[in-house]
């Protein structure tokens, strides 16, 4: 397998086959919490993509250091620290440079820190022993996959608001059911790519 095809497969795998939300079931909290409107879903996805790519690069470099020092058991705590710092930094910069986006994202921006999809991504990169370029491509695919799932789901939820749903199924109940159906639809991608 040439380098190009391998990178493409890694990207496709993170985007569709092993979609972080719908196949790995990571980051379910923002998936349900920020999917009521398409606008906020898009904003959240952009912030997550940025944090995912940045965090992957930094954690990949830090992992080299951890391995060299013989402290691989510290990955989780170090990665979380890096992610938290990064999210804070993004928040500070956004507040200065783009107040509009900052207001639109609101509370969801700091909440990215506790989004397990990002820590999961950083740990998966290390586990699968990706190179730096592979890590970046994997992070981009994972971020886009997260955005894809979020945007699809938010459009479904916007439409669902218009239909008559039995009282007991309104809100989160119907959201969970449709999330399950969406996840089943994504199972169709299984076997598309094998790494």
């Amino acid at each position, binding site marked *: 397998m040439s380098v190009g095809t391998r990178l493409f497969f890694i990207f496709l795998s993170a985007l569709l086959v092993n979609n972080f939300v719908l196949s790995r079931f990571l980051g379910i909290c923002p998936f349900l919490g920020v999917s009521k409107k398409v606008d906020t879903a898009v904003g959240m996805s952009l912030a997550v993509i940025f944090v995912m790519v940045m965090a992957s690069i930094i954690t990949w470099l830090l992992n080299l*250091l*951890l391995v060299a*020092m*013989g*402290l691989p058991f*510290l990955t989780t*705590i*170090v990665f979380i*620290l*890096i992610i938290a*710092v990064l999210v*804070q*930094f993004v928040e*500070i*910069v956004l*507040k*200065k*440079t783009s*107040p509009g986006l900052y207001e639109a994202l609101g509370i969801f921006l700091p909440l990215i820190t506790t989004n397990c999809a990002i820590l999961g991504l950083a740990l998966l990169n290390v586990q699968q022993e990706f190179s730096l370029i592979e890590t970046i491509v994997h992070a981009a695919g994972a971020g886009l996959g997260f955005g894809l799932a979020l945007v699809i789901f938010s459009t479904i939820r916007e439409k669902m608001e218009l239909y008559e749903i039995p009282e007991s199924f309104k809100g989160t109940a119907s959201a969970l059911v449709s999330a399950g159906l969406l996840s089943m639809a994504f199972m169709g991608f299984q076997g598309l790519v094998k790494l």
Partner: protein
Amino acid sequence: MIIVYSTILLGILGLTSGLFLAFAASKFAVKEDPRVKLVEAALPGINCGACGFPGCSGFAKAYADGKVPKEGCIPGRRSGVPEKLEAITKTSQEKILAIWKESGEDAEKALQKLLSATGAPPKPVPKKPVRPSPDEVAKYKGMLKDNELASLIYGALPNIDCGLCGHPGCAAFALKLAASEEKPEKCVPGMRQNVPEKVAKIKKMSSNEIKKMLEETAGDPKKIKEKLGG
């Protein structure tokens, strides 16, 4: 050894990230408009949300941008907030900046200085509203029966008997309105429900029209409000 290494590594990491964030925070510090700060200082600061914004800071920002009128702060209306906001709006940006620097960027001090400089009217002492007792409310409600105009006006009022108008309950206020002894603007919660317009509409009706509307709605305040429309 492992413990020493982990401690050193995490210590260094924590320190660098802390320094990095502190540096970023000062480098990208956002200077907030002193005008917004002054408006916020003039507001009651109880974050009640009655203006439609999540808190007083949201209202202050919108007011500074000219998006809301000075009467938008509902609890502040009776404590002279609109007058203070007016004084801030009338002051030029240069003067505000000068006052802001003089008072050491302290919003409270700056506001006091600005108000004394512009000679804004002193804060009127608000009369504490008394919530009427249920007996009193019931007494006036009984008096509505033989007054059709007042009954209809009662339907247009919020019917929460808050006592903010200074009368014991909505029924007593409706009787006063029917006798043209009060202004509908005195109904504080009603300002957001177009009560003055509704009352004016009712006052224009003939006695036959009033009778008809009362019969159609069976005197139910909810139905009367629907009939009168927004």
